């Protein structure tokens, strides 16, 4: 471990969580149309389609930590990120920000809490307003929230751009005049302009080329040291997550299946899904390997399998897996996994 990371990691030990999710769920439903309501009134049993995007998740992020959230498409990782960032209310459960329930905070406090958590999005093309100049994109929020003195905005925006590795002389340009990597830097400058201490990065490097991805990841690590930031880093790329995170949380179909310190999860994965995922990741060190592939498809979240969601694809599944939802249980210090096999052993 490099010396630069020792300090924030030591600070992370035993401090209060900056954000804590307690049994958080998010359901999306498709309301019945007129015909549906009509036949329901006539006594026919019709149900709304309900997607359990996030299903009873507990998660805490301590100050200074980088938590990697990994999962395949449709597992609810982006929905979870949005609830953490406070831009989407949970259907159930609590989002606790520095000991206060985010949903119960009143006007000014809620605004302050939300400002301290900012989000960086995947698509640097869709997340910037194409009709605004860079200076306006970055300067709008700090000006509205009164974070800069009158007349100081120009210099403030320059500082933000410089910190994100952009030349301030480009600030009169529009987003379409920038490359993908530069746009992602604009997104980062915009998020940091309101002085947050917690960043939710939702697939922030997924759309970038390898060499540009390395530049942006280095920028994230530099900003973490300089500004003492905390990250929830959402990604499907295990290589990126392994490199960046202190702790890794793995989701499958709306539930957390495993959670452990980064070294631990990559050295000793416990859950069969985690093991399958790690086995399937293409690695540059592997030469002419034989790919096997996890059996089966990712099930639809509209109609998830009973019991453990992974059981139809799991090579070790037994009767109990089909009937009972496994709870997240500690298997080693700081390492939790939701699998019935741990009880049997």
């Amino acid at each position, binding site marked *: *471990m490099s010396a630069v990371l020792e300090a924030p990691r030591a600070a992370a030990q035993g401090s209060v969580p900056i954000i804590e999710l307690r049994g958080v769920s998010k359901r999306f439903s498709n309301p019945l149309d007129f015909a549906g309501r009509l036949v329901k009134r006539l006594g026919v049993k019709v149900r709304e389609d309900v997607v359990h995007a996030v299903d009873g998740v507990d998660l805490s992020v301590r100050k200074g930590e980088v938590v990697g959230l990994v999962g*395949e498409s449709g597992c609810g990782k982006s929905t979870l990120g949005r609830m953490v960032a406070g831009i989407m209310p949970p259907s159930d459960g609590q989002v606790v920000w520095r000991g206060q329930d985010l949903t119960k905070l009143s006007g000014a406090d809620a605004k302050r809490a939300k400002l301290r958590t900012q989000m960086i999005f995947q698509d640097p093309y869709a997340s910037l307003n194409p009709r605004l100049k860079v200076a306006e994109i970055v300067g709008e929020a700090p000006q509205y929230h009164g974070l800069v003195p009158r007349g100081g905005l120009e210099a403030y925006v320059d500082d933000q751009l410089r910190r994100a590795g952009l030349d301030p002389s480009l600030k009169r340009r529009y987003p379409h005049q920038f490359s993908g990597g530069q746009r992602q830097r604009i997104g980062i400058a915009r998020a940091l302009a309101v002085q947050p201490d917690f960043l939710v990065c939702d697939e922030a490097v997924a759309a970038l080329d390898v060499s540009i991805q390395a530049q942006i990841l280095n920028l994230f690590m530099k900003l973490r040291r300089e500004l003492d930031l905390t990250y929830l880093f959402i990604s499907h790329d295990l290589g990126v997550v392994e490199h960046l995170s202190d702790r890794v949380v793995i989701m499958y179909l709306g539930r957390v299946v495993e959670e452990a310190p980064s070294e631990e999860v990559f050295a000793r994965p416990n859950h069969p899904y985690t093991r399958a995922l790690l086995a399937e990741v293409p690695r540059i060190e592997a030469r002419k390997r034989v790919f096997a592939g996890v059996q089966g498809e990712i099930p639809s979240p509209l109609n998830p399998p009973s019991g453990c969601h992974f059981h139809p694809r799991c090579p070790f599944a037994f009767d109990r897996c089909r009937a009972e939802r496994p709870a997240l249980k500690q298997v080693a210090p700081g390492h939790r996994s939701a699998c019935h096999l741990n009880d049997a052993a």
Partner: protein
Amino acid sequence: MSAVPASAAPGAPTLEVRNLRTHFLTRAGVVKAVDDVSFTVRSGKVLGLVGESGSGKSVTGFSILGLVDPPGRIVGGQILFKGQDLATLSEEAMRKLRGNRIAMIFQDPMMTLNPVLRIDTQMIETVLAHARVSREEARQRARDALGQVGIASPDERLRSYPHQFSGGMRQRVAIAIALLHKPDVIVADEPTTALDVTIQGQILAEAQKLCAQTGTALVWITHDLSVVAGLADDIAVMYAGKVVENGPVEQVLDAPLHPYTLGLIGSVPSRNRRGEPLRQIPGMTPSMLNLPAGCAFRARCPRAEARCAEPPPFAEYRPGRFARCIHPHEEAVAA
């Protein structure tokens, strides 16, 4: 230059691309999307064509299939398929080969599939376009192809529409369509980029099985070095329209000659110590409209010197190892 004599003798490459140049004559100027690309693929082998966005790897793939639309045009070089130059073929002759002897798999399977037609309609149409068989036999072939790519209950799935499949399944259908005529060459353009890790593993497994069983030569276009490391036999690295390095996969990845290849390998997170800054390539890819003279990589290259302003030759530095650089790395990289 890789000067292998062109012949249809056994052991000759199934596909050989020689000094291919595909340019786009736009109002803003000539975009040399593909500018001197050469590689060979043999039967049953996989070539990984690697590069970042805008490096010309997809245009190379489209050129092989004769799918470059105006203002794009193949302005030079040869595409030898079993000794026959595809670049000079008439549209009519190309149509007979395309989808029959040479097939393509796209990144987005919806580019292959028509959303308003059932899978069976589309597959039977493809069979009948190149083979004189009865409709019933065409359906049979379609069903076999679906089974071959691991789609459960193919009879039922034939009657579905594309939107009823998941992303991974659609890609399998696209691969099944490419397989219908047991082609000699398949060009796959980022076929797993949009898929999840576990589904990507399944598709890679199918691709491997396919090459081994049918002897199809596969050109796998991707930006992901890690995929190529596990799948390919040979690798060609592209930068700004040119192949900057090629050779057997283990040699290129363990002992890259070109500084760009070295930089690309270095920026892969797993090649770096956890938590430490990633080795990065400074700067960004140059605009294809006004490429610098000489080596296109020289503005980002740590080894650049005055001589790099001259176009570097594509030379063989070690047996079977070509690179377009005047001062290649001599020693193997430490992992």
